[in-house]
């Protein structure tokens, strides 16, 4: 790792027309390149990750919303499975992309409708100054976990090719305390084999035309480990995912207008086998997504951005009767207007036409105010209405799906302050942001037993959720002689409550949603000096209720992780070593009830780089 000079670059984007956006660049992500997206988001972002156990499902709760309200995009196309409407964050390797953009709440409407929490966009952009940059890294970690990452980025000032692969295998045979027997046992049946291959090509013509082609194949085969309950028999449960994603993009940049076209094809194959329930089902989804955006800047201070999106889903599943398809035609209009040097605004309008019917209109308005000329202080606010369509499983799951579901909808308002201060010398940079949101979600879809037949569970538009909270962040970069100090801190408070009950005995009204913490904190402190790096990360998760009436909960926990590294630079070569200690204090914890988590564990990464 060649440690770059401190780039004074805001991660808390202050100037986004009233919408909140945060960026994690490749330098921030560097220590996490052997990890998956769930680890990095839980340690450095405000998104809460609910991780069952190493090698198992990891889902998100973004701003107090359920898991299917965070959309994960890869360069603007959705990674979510159209059947489930959500992504498994444990299946996305960090080494497959360069940067993460987090679009909070209504900010995500520029990408999609329906993600009430927001959008996590995984981005790779070309560096036209690059000639050759080759990397190979090997990580060896506790519990027989091995990860190999290799990449070759090469090109000219008009053509760049990125080739990357990663291969990881994990046994996850960690010891834990079995509450059932009171003995220390070794986790079993938690194997994961995962590999992915990415090729991205960028071609620039006359600084006007940009052609991009991307392909990403990933393979993930894992055991689903059993819940801790003292069972003597284990019936294998396995999940196999094979995904191929491809994107073609074209961008034309003119003086007063530009055009951006994109088309993509995604095939997601999943097999789930559960020998206990005698299930062995294939699910095969094809999604084609195309979009066009035209930006016109013909009048001073005004940008008008009309666009059209088209999504086609084709699903063949052993759990559906017959092939199911869905098509969504989306009309999009974005108008950004700069009133003066202090006030900017942006209007986003969406209208979707789904399977031949117009869906409700999605409007959003953002306002940004910069009161002072010389001080980077920004006040942001936006108001929006958003709709989310039922997932294909909600609609079509054999016998239980409910084709009559309505979309969920959300009225949301948010506001925030962002401030940053770069010192003139460039040696000190501080940025901070505080924002609050208030969101009321209606017609939320919940799988619940039918009133006339409790043995049949059906998704129904029965719930209402009120989520409100505060997010605060503070980042620092400071150079003292040879020493470079960076620190990032995120604090969240969230009340997300059930606001509608359907049974006279239901005691959940006004109570916190299950498995959504009321507060979280994560902080990182990194020290760099003479190509040494010493980093400390602290992640705190407050109690999560496990019952809707909030009668039982999982207590709060804090995890500490440290990282120590050294790199040696020899002209065009660099060799770096990195040691990580996770769960430093060996906390015996569970994130989800009865799913074991590992105690203190270690990893060692050796990385070779060649750069010219």
């Amino acid at each position, binding site marked *: 790792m060649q440690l770059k000079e401190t780039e004074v670059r805001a991660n808390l984007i202050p100037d986004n027309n009233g919408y909140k956006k945060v960026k994690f660049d490749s330098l921030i992500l560097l220590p996490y390149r052997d990890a998956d997206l769930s680890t990095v988001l839980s340690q450095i972002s405000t998104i809460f990750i609910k991780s069952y156990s190493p090698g198992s499902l990891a889902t998100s709760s973004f701003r107090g919303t359920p898991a299917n309200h965070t959309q994960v995009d890869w360069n603007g196309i959705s990674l979510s499975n159209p059947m489930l409407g959500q992504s498994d964050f444990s299946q996305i390797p960090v080494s497959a992309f360069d940067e993460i953009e987090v679009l909070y709440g209504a900010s995500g409407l520029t990408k999609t409708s329906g993600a009430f929490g927001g959008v996590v966009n995984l981005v790779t952009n070309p560096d036209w100054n690059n000639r050759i940059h080759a990397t190979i890294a090997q990580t060896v970690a506790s519990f027989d976990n091995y990860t190999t990452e290799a990449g070759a980025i090469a090109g000219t000032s008009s053509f760049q090719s990125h080739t990357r692969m990663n291969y990881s295998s994990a046994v996850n045979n960690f010891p834990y305390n079995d509450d059932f027997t009171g003995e220390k046992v070794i986790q079993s049946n938690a194997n994961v084999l995962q590999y992915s291959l990415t090729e991205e090509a960028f071609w620039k013509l006359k600084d006007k035309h940009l052609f991009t082609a991307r392909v990403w194949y990933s393979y993930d085969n894992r055991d689903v480990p059993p819940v801790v*309950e003292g069972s003597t*028999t284990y019936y294998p449960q396995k999940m196999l995912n094979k995904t191929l994603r491809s994107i073609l993009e074209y961008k034309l940049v003119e003086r007063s207008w530009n055009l951006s076209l994109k088309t993509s094809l995604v095939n997601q194959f999943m097999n789930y086998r559960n020998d206990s329930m*005698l299930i062995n089902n294939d699910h095969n989804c094809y999604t084609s997504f195309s979009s066009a955006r035209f930006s016109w800047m013909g009048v001073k201070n005004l940008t008008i951005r009309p666009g059209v999106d088209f999504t086609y889903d084709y699903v063949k599943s052993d759990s559906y009767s017959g092939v199911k398809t869905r098509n969504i035609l989306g009309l999009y209009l974005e108008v950004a207007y700069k009133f003066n040097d202090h006030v900017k605004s942006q209007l986003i309008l969406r209208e979707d036409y789904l399977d031949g019917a117009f869906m409700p209109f999605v409007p959003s308005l953002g306002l940004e105010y910069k009161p002072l000329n010389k001080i980077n202080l920004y006040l942001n606010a936006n108001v929006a209405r958003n709709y989310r369509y039922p997932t294909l499983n909600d609609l079509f799951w054999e016998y239980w799906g409910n084709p009559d579901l309505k979309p969920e909808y959300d009225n949301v308002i948010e506001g925030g302050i962002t401030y940053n201060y770069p010192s003139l010398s460039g040696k000190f940079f501080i940025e901070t942001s505080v924002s609050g949101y208030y969101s009321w979600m209606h017609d939320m879809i919940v799988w619940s037993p039918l009133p006339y037949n409790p043995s*049949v569970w059906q998704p129904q538009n029965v719930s209402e959720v009120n989520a409100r909270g505060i997010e605060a962040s503070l980042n620092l970069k400071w150079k003292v002689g040879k020493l470079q100090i960076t620190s990032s*801190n995120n604090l969240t408070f969230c009340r997300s409550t059930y606001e509608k009950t359907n*049974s006279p005995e239901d005691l959940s009204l006004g109570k916190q949603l299950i498995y959504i913490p009321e507060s979280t904190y994560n902080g990182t402190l990194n020290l760099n000096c003479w190509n040494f790096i010493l980093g400390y990360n602290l992640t705190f998760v407050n109690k999560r209720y496990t*019952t809707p*009436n909030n009668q039982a909960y*999982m207590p709060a926990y804090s995890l500490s992780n440290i990282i120590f590294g050294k790199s040696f630079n020899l002209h065009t070569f660099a060799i770096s070593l990195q040691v990580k200690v996770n769960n430093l204090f060996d906390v015996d914890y569970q994130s989800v009830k009865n799913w074991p988590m590992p105690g203190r564990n270690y990893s060692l990464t050796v990385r070779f780089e060649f750069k010219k």
Partner: protein
Amino acid sequence: MMLTGLIMYFLSACSKEPIREVTTPPVNPPTDTSKVVYNNGVFIVNEGNYNWANASVTYIDNKSGLAYQDIFKTANSRGLGDVAQSMKISGDKGYIIVNNSDRIEVVSLKDFKTIKSVTGFSSPRYIEFVDTTKAYVTNMRRNISIVDLKTLAVVKTISTPYWTESLVRFGQFMYVTCIGSFNVPTADRKSQIYIIDTKTDVIVDSLLLGKEPVSITVDRKNKIWVICTGGYDNYEAPTLQRIDPALNIVDKTFTFPVQQGVPSRLCMNPTRDTLYFIYNGVYQMAAGANELPATALIPANGHLFYGLGIHPLTGQVFVSDAIDYVQSGKVFRCSQANGQVLGSYTAGRIPGSFCFTPSSKK
């Protein structure tokens, strides 16, 4: 700095105690079970959620009317397991069937401590005693287990091609309902009843029934009653069928209206002349009736009635409300005369079945 203070606070949250679920006790918590004698009350078996391993047993003491939560954990310092299906008592022992843990916890009724965790089942459902030495256990996966009650071990299995569910002893024979293959559409499932000679442990006869026969009982006139749901995919209308064991034929079939609900949990009153079942609400039906009852004894009124039991001495109706299948359920004790609620109790998650102590008195 304030930040340092915050970090110290967060670090202080990382205690050395294992971080596990904490349950805040309900109001008026009788947590001290040391003085409780399990000889006059009802055990409520709370299934818990599949794969959450949060099954539990609640005990309601008849005398004091108090509900004691999670008595298995209190007595044994560990959880009961994943999905507790049912419980039955023989002598001074309780047998709790923990379905997804493939186990039967045999507990002493003196203190509810485990005498033995019997293993060797394949998704066990219900137990029925042949005598004081032998019991049959149905399994979702293709056999009936025979448990020796002296050694508390599975000593034999009767192989069946399909999922066996509910069972009742009738003289020398055991009547066992069979749902069919686990993972096929209802149309392809062979629903039947096996008649097993308990002396030889051999299936001596079988009888075709309506789809998904889930619940079985015997009346005072020696007729066997079965509820068939019609299939999880509403393959056919649900039925209540009566079997004449003398001839081994279905001699009566009552058909429920299609799409209005699914009947379950067939029970008998102490004198065994009245049937009870859940069909949204709780219904009461004389064994000699010529048609299904038109109105419910206890209407559902928004409740999600899930488990049903009839007190073997008083005849009072115990019905559980699973609410949303996640929060703690409720149990209502109702009058068999008019359905009026006489008492209500908080139970655990998904209260599914009841087990009354042998000497239950009012």
